[in-house]
């Protein structure tokens, strides 16, 4: 019996074959041609976890902790791995309350993350405290698509030395473009040691490629970690700062505006770098920074200004020490050169007549240095007083700049201002070429006029005197990761071309300044301090109180500069402050608590700020008048 429809078996077989061929073509397209699916598969399952090494610690010269880390956690999201639609309302509430944010904030953050990428992880919330993290971590499994990443925040146990240490912050776009190491959201040193030693402190971040399942649970490393890179922890820094002294200096400078810089003369190591007013470095950590920075930036006492490096001051009488040294070196005066105190030339106070360089320093006689500087500038090498002044000034300039003045140091201290030592060009521009002579610039003789020095340079100058003619560039770091720092800049001996025996004369004078001169308040029991006071006039407000010193006289261990704005005589405020620092550093105790108490009780802040405000107003007026 022949079935009438048996030919139809072929049609059915053909239909089966067609379907099979379509499937095979489709599979070929999906599996062999279309590469995007393989990429999506990797996006699904591979998670690139950046391993941030903990930023290295910073210690002071005695091993005291200055900066350490605390753990915080970022919450990240991969939108595609979140369940479709929204989390049920109750869960969103639970989540936001755990995070301590509002539902709206959560939605906004999530919206931004979704806009950035559906596949790639992006940060939802930053710096969740360890306490919140503890509760969050337990519940996180309920929220697929969300995961945390640990990172560390800086913390400053002694709340001191804010400007020395600087701070870190999120890297900006310009930097990420310039340096591919940094990715948006990374942290980078922005100022201070954090900036100078960024690469030492940060270490090297690593990448771990993890496999995760659909619920974001880690499922082990990808190809046994073949493509992982390990994070390398940075090296701890041992700074030259003596944290006790730094802290003590900050305490002494409370309610005053100014700066203290102390240096170890034999090495150039900075022992303290105090600026006042300052701030608690913990205020500029993590998410706190965005809140506190504007407040500090607007504060009229300018706590963000590092006066030790950036405040350009007239040096006042301390400059006489340099003038004397230059005069001696140029041979225009001798050990026993004497000048009468002719108050007709320039104002002075009453004191015995100076018959030697030593006495001139001890009594800080203004007319004496007027005469010294006159001899330097007008050496009689040309008949024209203008040409003669040019020759003399150039000779002076060549020497004075050898004292580390007029330029910033090439060192690990950042954002230092160079101050100003006027040049011939400067005066030519100011007065016209051949139209200035000694008479025009005589106020330089007593450290007034166009000369400006930052406190760091003053302290370095004190170190030069202590060393009798040389200095190592002041710097902040002694050791990197247990090893003595190798930076050649710190080991270069800068020799000042002035004979050592001239320094001896000056040192004798400076010794007398403290023992029997203007800085008797700087005396310390059993320690011979050599110093020089200054009372720097400033056109808008009371004189600044200045003191530079070193001690002990033999084999000096510390050189110091103290600058207190608008505090009057150098001997009254700056000198005792310097002596307290010196004594604390050398003996670790204070023999005269009354001296300390007097300084602590001295509140000069309001007065300084009122001058500041006046100056700002004047500046504004003069600007609007232009």
């Amino acid at each position, binding site marked *: 019996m022949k079935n009438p429809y048996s030919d139809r*078996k072929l049609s059915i077989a053909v239909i089966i074959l067609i379907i099979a061929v379509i499937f095979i073509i489709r599979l070929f397209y999906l599996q*062999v041609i279309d590469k995007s699916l393989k990429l999506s598969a990797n996006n699904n399952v591979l998670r690139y976890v950046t391993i941030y090494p903990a930023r290295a610690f910073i210690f002071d010269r005695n091993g005291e902790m200055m900066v350490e880390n605390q753990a915080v956690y970022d919450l990240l999201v991969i939108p595609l791995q979140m369940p*479709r*639609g929204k989390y049920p309302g109750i869960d969103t509430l639970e989540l936001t309350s755990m995070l301590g944010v509002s539902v709206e904030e959560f939605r906004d953050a999530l919206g931004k993350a979704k806009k950035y990428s559906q596949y790639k992880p992006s940060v939802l919330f930053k710096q969740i405290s360890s306490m919140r993290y503890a509760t969050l971590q337990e519940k996180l499994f309920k929220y697929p698509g969300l995961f945390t990443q640990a990172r560390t925040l800086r913390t400053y146990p002694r709340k001191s030395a804010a400007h020395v240490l600087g701070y870190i912050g999120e890297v900006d776009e310009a930097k990420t473009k310039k340096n591919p190491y940094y990715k948006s959201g990374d942290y980078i040193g922005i100022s201070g040691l954090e900036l100078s030693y960024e690469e030492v402190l940060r270490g090297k971040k690593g990448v771990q490629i993890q496999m995760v399942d659909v619920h974001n649970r880690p499922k082990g490393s990808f190809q046994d970690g073949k493509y992982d890179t390990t994070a390398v922890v940075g090296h701890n820094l041992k700074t030259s700062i003596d944290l006790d002294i730094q802290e003590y200096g900050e305490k002494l400078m409370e309610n005053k505006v100014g700066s203290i810089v102390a240096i170890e003369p034999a090495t150039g190591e900075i022992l303290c770098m105090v600026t006042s007013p300052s701030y608690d470095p913990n205020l500029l950590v993590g998410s706190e920074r965005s809140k506190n920075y504007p407040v500090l930036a607007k504060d009229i006492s300018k706590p963000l200004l590092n006066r030790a490096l950036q405040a350009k001051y007239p040096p006042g009488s301390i400059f006489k020490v340099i003038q004397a040294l230059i005069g001696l070196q140029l041979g225009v005066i001798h050990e026993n050169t004497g000048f009468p105190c002719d108050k007709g030339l320039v104002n002075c106070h009453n004191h015995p007549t100076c018959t030697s360089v030593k006495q001139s320093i001890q009594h800080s006689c203004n007319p004496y240095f007027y005469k010294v500087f006159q001899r330097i500038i007008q050496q009689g090498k040309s008949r024209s007083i203008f040409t003669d002044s040019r020759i003399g000034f150039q000779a002076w300039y060549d020497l004075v700049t050898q004292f580390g003045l007029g330029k910033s140091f090439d060192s690990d201290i950042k954002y230092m201002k160079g101050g100003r030592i006027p040049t011939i060009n400067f005066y030519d521009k100011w007065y016209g070429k051949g139209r200035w002579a000694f008479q025009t610039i005589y106020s330089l003789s007593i450290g007034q006029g166009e000369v400006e020095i930052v406190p760091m340079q003053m302290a370095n100058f004190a170190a030069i005197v202590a060393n009798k003619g040389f200095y190592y560039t002041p710097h902040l770091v002694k050791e990197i990761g247990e090893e003595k720092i190798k930076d050649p800049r710190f080991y270069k001996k800068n020799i000042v071309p002035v004979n050592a025996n001239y320094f001896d004369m000056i040192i004798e004078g400076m010794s007398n300044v403290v023992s029997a001169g203007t800085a008797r308040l700087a005396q310390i029991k059993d320690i011979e301090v050599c110093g020089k006071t200054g009372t720097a006039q400033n056109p808008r407000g009371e004189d600044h109180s200045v003191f530079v010193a070193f001690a002990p006289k033999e084999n000096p261990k510390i050189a110091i500069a103290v600058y207190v704005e608008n505090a009057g005589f150098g001997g009254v405020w700056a000198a005792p402050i310097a002596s307290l620092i010196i004594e604390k550093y050398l003996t670790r105790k204070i023999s005269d608590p009354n001296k300390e108490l007097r300084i602590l009780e001295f509140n000069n802040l309001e007065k300084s700020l009122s001058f500041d405000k006046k100056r700002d107003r004047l500046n504004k007026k003069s600007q609007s008048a232009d």
Partner: protein
Amino acid sequence: MIKSATDSTRKVNLLISVDWTTIILYFLLVIIGWVNIYAAVYNNEYQSIFDISQKYGKQMLWIGAALFIILLIFITDSNFFSFFAIFVYIITIGLLIAVLLFGKEVNGARAWFEIGSFRLQPAEFAKLAACLTIAKLLSFLNPKTHIIRNWVLILGMIGIPAALIILQNDTGTALVYGAFVFVLFREGWVSTKFLFFGVLVIVLFIATLITDPLFLVISLIVLSLIIFGAMRRRLKEFSIVTGIFIVSGVLFYAINYALKKPFELHYVFAASALLASIVCVIINIQIKIANAITIIAMLIASLSFTFTVDYIFDKVLSEHQRLRISVLLGMETDLKGAGYNVHQSKIAIGSGGFLGKGFLKGTQTKYDFVPEQSTDFIFCTIGEEWGFLGSTIVIGLFVALLLRIIFLAERQRSHFSRIYGYAVASIIFFHLTINIGMTIGLAPVIGIPLPFFSYGGSSLWAFTMLLFIFIRLDASRLELLA
């Protein structure tokens, strides 16, 4: 009935007369399926494939039970199945009603009996009953007489279980009964035209909404060319038309590219197909080529249909109408995720590449990115771990099985056995097409298992019974007089 005296000789005969090809194909599919279930749910804690606390361990038990079922079928008299077909059908309908009343709801479908920790899905076995009954019914109905009465009988017989299964909220399984159209076609109840147009319209409609138009247009054109080439061995004309299509396609593509792509790519290829068709018509006027006009008309009609459906769906229908169709087609299995499952499934298969990632190396299925990976989406594991090669082999095995069943069916002397064979092939074919089609984004997401592969006792046993009753019938075909 066969006398008991001949029993011993018959049993010896059975081992020789069963179709070992089919049996070997069956065991290959079942074992590959089992291994892939192991790979799909594999984790480090339970490494033994025999661990019966895991799905693969359970599947092993189901396979063991299937062997027992096979044995039972083999020792059953071959006339039993024809004889009791109606009886089995009535029992099954009873079970389908009972499950609606007493069944357990799983994933929104009230389709399961729960006996202790064991779950049974009567709808799976209803397929078997339907196959037996349709074979029985068609074997004595005549398509030429009492047409209305016969059709009422046939559609009623198919429709009742399908309707009951729809009431269980398991539309996917009910759609399987549509597969009997192939049986009706083979037996002359449905004409070639009806089958062709019916299948074409359904396929085009679904394909337009599910696949991207470019893939569809190219498939249609390639398909037309294949049919054109196969119909008449006019190699010269065939090459001319193909050549014109390819050259104009490349040309149009280049022009479109140069104009900064003003047109979508599928329009470009549709245009070149049109050009090739016009040339073909001109050739046809000169030398008559049988069916050429028909094929061209079909192609153009298909393309128009595709573009119309696309246009209506995108531009005419409102948002909620679109959504309802999408849900109906399973394009959105849950209202939450538009095609999330299919997307993940395509990623898993696509990431397999040509040779696959290797056994147990598949990350997408192992880490649960693919939903239902051991049941409805088991093909993803094959695609990911065994790649294009493995997937093609599996499809090849299925095609071999289907063609073998058709071959066996055609050699049956009894109508019942032949029709039953076609019914079995139709059911398996429908499952295969929809299941693999959905994992590669060519078919709507209808939750039906891949025969012999997917995890689950009910499904495995139902397909085992379907197939082995046919093998049993085939083995005793010679006992009947023609």
